[in-house]
């Protein structure tokens, strides 16, 4: 009889613990889903800042710097630890309206050669002050396509070929519905569930990083923790300081100058596409990046923590990150806890939720002061 009771109680405990872990996992996903469709092209971060502030628990006092990065300081003591993550993404803005009402678009942030070609022939959104406007990036009609135009599309796809059709017939009509110069333009997005624990979507890696830091903020704020951490969602991280060597993100430079904490954790994406260290894959755990540290204690402790908690960690000691570089020159202990992303900078960045979960757990423990 006693054995039966123990067995039932054990079963209940197992169910509860599985339920609890699922609930935690879905909380990050839920946040990411909320943030997923919020536009955040570099330099146009206000909507994502508003979204983050709306989600933060009441009583959280935030501040901004001159570039727009958002800071949340927890606890009354001096911060020993700061966790910083980018909140901006690659995107476009309206750079002109032609007499037929087609919008011309441009960008401030440059990336892989193919990055613009993915969007030709696909739905986009123009974020005007009057609200979002749906549009499509025009394609030539196949049946009446000349070989010259076909060649342009196949071999030189670029913004020169981008005409954003918003369903109007003149510049006047475009202006009348609220389109103005420099309105942000993003692709329309939808999440794709893949097999197992993988999901895909445009800028999904960055949205999950934003959501991860927001999730841990929600869990511990406004309570104090041993590390009195500062959490930062950084603006303009896709825009480099001109001629900086090593390459340094402008937004990260400003944050690194402002942050007092000696220990810095950067949460960012790690592209698994052959351009970096071989062997880093999605589904194998977060990536620990730790090149050039003066003080190696934090990276050693993070590795031990992962080992103790049974978390798989991938190591990328030599990875160079434009977001991390500014911190490395100003702070003693800087590590990156990066989320591995497949097909980065494409409309379908693939992420494994298991990695997100492990990263969330590592961050939670670090923010409680353990390992720092």
């Amino acid at each position, binding site marked *: 009889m006693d054995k039966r009771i123990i067995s039932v109680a054990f079963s209940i405990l197992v169910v509860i613990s599985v339920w609890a872990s699922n609930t935690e996992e879905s909380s990050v996903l839920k946040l990411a889903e909320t943030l997923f469709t919020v536009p955040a092209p570099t330099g146009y971060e206000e909507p994502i800042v508003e979204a983050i502030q709306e989600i933060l628990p009441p009583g959280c006092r935030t501040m901004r710097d001159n570039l727009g990065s958002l800071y949340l300081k927890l606890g009354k003591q001096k911060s020993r630890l700061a966790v910083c993550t980018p909140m901006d993404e690659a995107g476009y803005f309206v750079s002109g309206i032609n007499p037929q009402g087609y919008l011309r678009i441009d960008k401030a942030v440059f990336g*892989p050669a193919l990055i613009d070609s993915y969007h030709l022939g696909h739905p986009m959104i123009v974020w005007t002050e009057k609200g979002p406007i749906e549009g499509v990036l*025009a394609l030539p009609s196949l049946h*009446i396509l000349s070989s010259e*135009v076909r060649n342009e599309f196949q071999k030189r796809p670029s913004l020169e070929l981008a005409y954003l*059709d918003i369903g109007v017939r003149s510049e006047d009509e475009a202006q009348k519905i609220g389109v103005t110069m420099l309105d942000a333009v993003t692709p329309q997005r939808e999440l794709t569930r893949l097999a197992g624990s993988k999901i895909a979507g445009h800028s999904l890696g960055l949205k999950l990083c934003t959501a991860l830091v927001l999730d841990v903020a929600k869990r511990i704020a406004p309570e104090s923790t041993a590390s009195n951490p500062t959490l930062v969602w950084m603006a303009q991280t896709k825009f480099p300081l001109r001629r900086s060597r090593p390459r340094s993100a402008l937004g990260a430079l400003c944050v690194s100058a402002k942050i007092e904490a000696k220990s810095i954790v950067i949460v960012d994406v790690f592209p698994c596409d052959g351009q970096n260290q071989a062997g880093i894959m999605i589904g194998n755990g977060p990536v620990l990046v730790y090149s050039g540290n003066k003080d190696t204690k934090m990276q050693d402790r993070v590795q031990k923590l992962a080992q103790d908690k049974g978390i798989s960690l991938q190591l990328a000691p030599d990875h160079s990150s434009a977001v991390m570089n500014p911190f490395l020159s100003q702070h003693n202990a800087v590590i990156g806890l990066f989320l591995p992303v497949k097909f980065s900078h494409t409309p379908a960045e693939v992420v494994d939720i298991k990695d997100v979960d492990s990263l969330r757990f590592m961050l939670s423990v670090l923010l409680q002061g353990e390992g720092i």
Partner: protein
Amino acid sequence: MMKKNILFVLLLMVFLYGVLFSHTIKESKTSWQLLKELVLIPGVSGYEGQVADFIQSRLPQEVKPQKDEMQNLWFTVGSGRPHLVFVAHTDELGFVVEGITPEGLLKVSSRGGFLPQMYEGHAVEIHTKTGIVGGIVAPRPNYFQRNLEISAYTTADIAIYLGVSSQEEVRALGVSNGDSITIRKKIVEFSPELLATRAVDDRAGCAALLEASCRVDWTKIENKTITFAWDVQEETGLFGASHLAVKLDADYVFPVDTFVSSAGPFDSRRFAHLPLGKGAVLRAIDSSNIAPYAQLKKVIAIARANKIPIQLGNTRGGNDGSVFVPHGAVDIPLSWPGTYSHSFIEKIHRADLEALTDLIAALVRDWE
């Protein structure tokens, strides 16, 4: 007592209205609304069953539809000559699974003509026997390079990632050779009158024909035979229409399909420059047919008599009616002006689709 009687009469009227006019209520959807439902139904060439089933379920009760083994669907009303056949195609562009690599990627063949690069890096849906499986068209291997010499991207380059890494895992998802694949569709509604999405070609034709079938009073068809047909495999070579051309013995065939307009920003306006929103189109000349001018004038006269806005133009591409011509029929293609053909953003104006629907109904009624 009086109040009770009034209430009873009112309830009876509501009941009788429901019984007598339930069919009319079912028919009350516009071709525009039907289009928005039809475009979302998967129907890659050779896999049109679901589209045909949807259309069959919405046909007026008084007609007797037939379906052949290819999934061509049609009904015929009336007797004698002339025999007018109106036909729209149910199939759409897409892929079919041809193989699974040891790494668990799907290799495909295309159904119809399009620029494969439109799919690169985008989400697709694999239609398996057990349901839809999500996938991503993997970007080309060197996609992350900043200074990339871009080469043409072909169907052979396409590899679909499902989130797994072996053939066994792919099969466990229910995916197998021969499954059809479509892009994940999205309807962009610029306004209540204008939209862009995949498969407007030729679900708009299907919708116009379906809606017209609900508007026509079939009891009044005399001294002529009318067939409405929804055929298959147009995009891969007019195969369904070829089958029907043998079977139907038409005098006049009215294929209902896109008029590829050069109203987009890249197109040469030397020909095909018919704007959207100005009415139905008589696709007088295309790559497969030249409609006799006398017959075009007859259609224009009927359109004008019924106050239906109509445009006349020439474009490129083939039409289903062309395969009826060798069997003795006259091919008179009916259209709407559409831009961005064979893309995910085929654009159409509501006024044009409604004019086209009106035109089909008027031709059925007034053609002699």
